[in-house]
Structures are given as structure tokens and as C-alpha cells.
């Protein structure tokens, strides 16, 4: 049986994490998560996820910096990153893409199926 692909969720809202975990687990993925921006890098190094899902407004920092740090780390820079945020302004979207996010979804304007499709597409690459 092939190993399940692993997704690291960096999100500080517990309801959101529960929801993502259930939806992505149903779609066949293994889920790990952290609500703490400063732990994201260490967790990524240890767990080597196949993809990361990032929120931008985190309790202890901003997701933009985490994306930037991931892209600057030789061992992690190739991990695909999906930003799932409710910041919908073009400046935020452009900033996340500029820092290295592969996809950006405004949560409340996106159906979860679209996110699952994007996860599958990015992991396949």
C-alpha cells in the first residue's frame, strides 16, 4: 500500500484545523499541524511534509515570514505551499505569492473541493 502524502497545516484557529484535518484526511492525506508560526520551520524540517497549508494571521507572527523562511531553507524550499487566508486584498495575495506561495485561496470565497484539487495537483508535480 503506497504511503499517504503528508500535509503540514500552520493555522491557529482550532475549528479551522479540525475542519481541514477531517476534509483532507477524507481525501486520503496524513495531517500534522501547528498553531505556532515559530514552530512551523522546525516541524517542517523534522516531518518533511509533501505540502504545507499556511494561514497568514497567526497569533505569534505572520505567515508571510514563515513562507519566506521556508523558501530560503535549502532543504525545504521545494515544498509546495498553499496559502489559505481570509485576507482578500490584492496586496496580501501578491505579497504571499512574491514570498513563495504556490497558490492563494480566500477561504470564505473558495469551496473546499478546489483546495483538495490544488493539493493533489501540487503534490503530483
Amino acid at each position, binding site marked *: 500500500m503506497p504511503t499517504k502524502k503528508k500535509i503540514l497545516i500552520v493555522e491557529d*484557529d482550532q*475549528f*479551522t484545523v479540525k*475542519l481541514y484535518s*477531517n*476534509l483532507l484526511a*477524507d481525501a486520503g492525506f496524513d495531517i500534522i499541524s501547528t498553531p505556532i508560526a515559530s514552530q512551523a520551520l522546525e516541524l517542517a524540517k523534522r516531518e518533511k511534509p509533501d505540502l504545507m497549508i499556511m494561514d497568514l*494571521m497567526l497569533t505569534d507572527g505572520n505567515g508571510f515570514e514563515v513562507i519566506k523562511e521556508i523558501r530560503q531553507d535549502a532543504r525545504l524550499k521545494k515544498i509546495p505551499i498553499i496559502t489559505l487566508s*481570509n*485576507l*482578500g*486584498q*490584492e496586496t496580501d*495575495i*501578491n505579497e504571499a505569492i512574491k514570498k513563495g506561495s504556490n497558490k492563494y485561496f*480566500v*477561504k*470564505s*470565497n*473558495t*469551496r*473546499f*473541493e*478546489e483546495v483538495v484539487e490544488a493539493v493533489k495537483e501540487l503534490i503530483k508535480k
Partner: protein
Amino acid sequence: MLIIPFYPANRQSAKFGQITGVCYNICESKKTKNMRNPTFPEITKEVGHFIDSLGDGVLVVNKGGIALDCNRAICNILGYKGKNDLIKHPALTLLSPTDAEGVPITKKNAVLFDSINNGKKIVNTIRQFIKKDGTRIWASLTTTPLKDKHNKTEGAIMVIRDVTKEKQQEEYRTDFAHIASHSLRTPLGNVMWAIEYLLSNQPGQLNDKQKSYLDDSYKTLKNMNRLVNDLLSVTNMPYKKIRPNWQKVNVADVYSKVYNDLQYYAQAHNVTIELANKAPEYFIKADENHVRNIIQNIIENAIRYAFNKSAIKINFEKEGKYTIFSCSNLGIGIPENKKKFIFAKFFRANNAVNKEGDGTGLGLYITKELVTLNKGKIWFESEENKTTIFFIQFLTF
């Protein structure tokens, strides 16, 4: 001869009556005689009075950047008592400029010297200056080279407009948009996804009554989300320089995403969405997110105001260098005497309010703004209680 032409930099600044260029006649001054070239352009008494009456600060410098003259407004803006506190001092010392990010400006990258050294006018550069009391102000700076009768640059005139209040308002708006985005959308998005999950039957089979309640809840949340999106767009639109991220966009792909998005909504209104020609691969030049908003708004409207059990018809056609998207419905239509208001902010026709109480009156306003941003056109044909067709012209890629 005395010439004082006004050059509004753009329509926006023209509204505020900003002066971005002034010419001087040539004569000599005692005050700063030793600091200027004998042929340096001079402010006459009449022009001096006129410049003193302006709300924008004016500072005249020689080619070394030393202040030779100024008006009262610049003293007020920078917090100095009188002109003598400024004259004979280097402009960069007086202003202590930094760029918008707070990085100090030096002689090497100052627009003032760019203007002097290259003989060009530089309009509306945003800078932060430090006032005499140490507080910071935001300013819009325009520098115009001053030339002598041999057309040689001998200095520059700096026109400084204090935009601190506008900047603060912009920051409040950005903060509001961030807070509203995060605090309103997060719970909305979570509950919508939770309902989607339940409706997918993955966690367990729902009975008809449960499904019906969840369908209604989803519809209500969708409406609320639309309201939040519309209010945020309208908050930002007039103030932010939204620029399209020009891309090659496959309209068929965008349409199919919108189609999927609107399935629940169409079912709830008991209408169908039909594509006339089978998803043609038309490529347009536009911002994909804007196109999605535009198409979604138009189809959503068509659904909302359609008669029960009718069909929304979608079509894409190529016409020369344009691609036309059209969306027609059979429904309440737009009354003849309301047609001219249909793209106005917060406008809703009476028949629309009667049919659907929950609209914001912002959808078509936002749609038209986005279409215009993407160099497109929008128009419609409508007869009350009959067919309404909206057309949108995009640039073909």
C-alpha cells in the same frame, strides 16, 4: 514678463487644486544674492504674495539644494516660525526625508537632485519628512527644475503637499479591511465548509429535513459572505490603486469554476444554468480573479431575478479582437426608468427589492469597476418581466 502656469499632475490631484509647476521671471534679490547664479530665476513681489496664499508648501533651492526662498505654508507644514528659519539651509537637512518605508533619502537618491541634474520634473513622490519638533509627516513632493534664460538648470522648485491625514485615513481603511476580512470571513468560511462537508454525506447520510435546513443555512451564509465581500470591495475601490494582474485567462475554465460555485444557489432558486456553445477555449487578457468576480456577479444576479423554473443562458463569442460574454435570464427585468441607475453604488430597483430583499446594491457597481479596470465594456438589454441580457466585452489574448 510673468508666467505662472499650473500643471495638475493628474485628475486626482487636480481635484485638490495642487500646483505642480511654477515659472519665474528673472530679476535679482538681495536676500540670497550671494548664493545664486546671477541669472537665477527670481520670485517677484507679486508672485511672492500669490505663492504665500497657497496651501501647498513651496521651497525654491539652488542647484546645491540650498533653500533660497519659500512660502508661509512650508513653514507651517514643517513647524518653523518664519521663512528665515529655512532660507540658506540645505533642503535635505530641513526635511530629513525618508521614503514610504522609512529608508532615509540621501543626496544620491533624492528626487530633488534627480530633477536638478537631469532637468526633469518629478511629480507626486510620496515621502516622509521630519518636522522641527521631531514628528513625522507624509508628503507628496513635486520637483520642477528652474532654468535660466540659457535653458541651464540653476535650481529647482519643490512643491510639498501635506498628505498625513489622507495617509492616516488610508491606514485606517487598510486596518479595517484586515480586521473585517479576518474577523468576519473566518467564522463564515469555517461554517460554510462545515456545511459543505455535511452536505457531501461523507460524515454520514442526511435525511431530507436535515438536508433542507443545511441548504437554507448555506444559502444564508453565502449571502452574508457576498455582503462582506461587497462591502470590503467598496471600502477599497475608490482609494486603492487596484491594478489588474494581466494574464492569459481561459474563460471556459473560469466559467466552469463559477458554474460549480453557483450550483447550490441555482438549485435553491429552482433555475438551471446552460452554456450555449460547449465550453469553448477562449483566451482573454485580464486578471483571472477579476474575471471570476465579474462572471460570478452577473450570473448570480441572473439567478436571483429569474422566474422560477427558467434557464440562465450563457454564451461566449469571439468578435475581432474582443471576446464577448453574455448572460441572459427570463425574469423581472429592469424597469425602463431605472436603467440609467443600474451601475450606481447602492442602487436597487423596486421590483428587485420586492423579489429579493437581501441584495446589497453593490454587485453591478463593483462589476462595472472591475470590467473597466480590465479594459472591458459592460452593457445590457432588458425588458420588464421578460428577457434581460448582460454583455461583457473582454480583450482577446
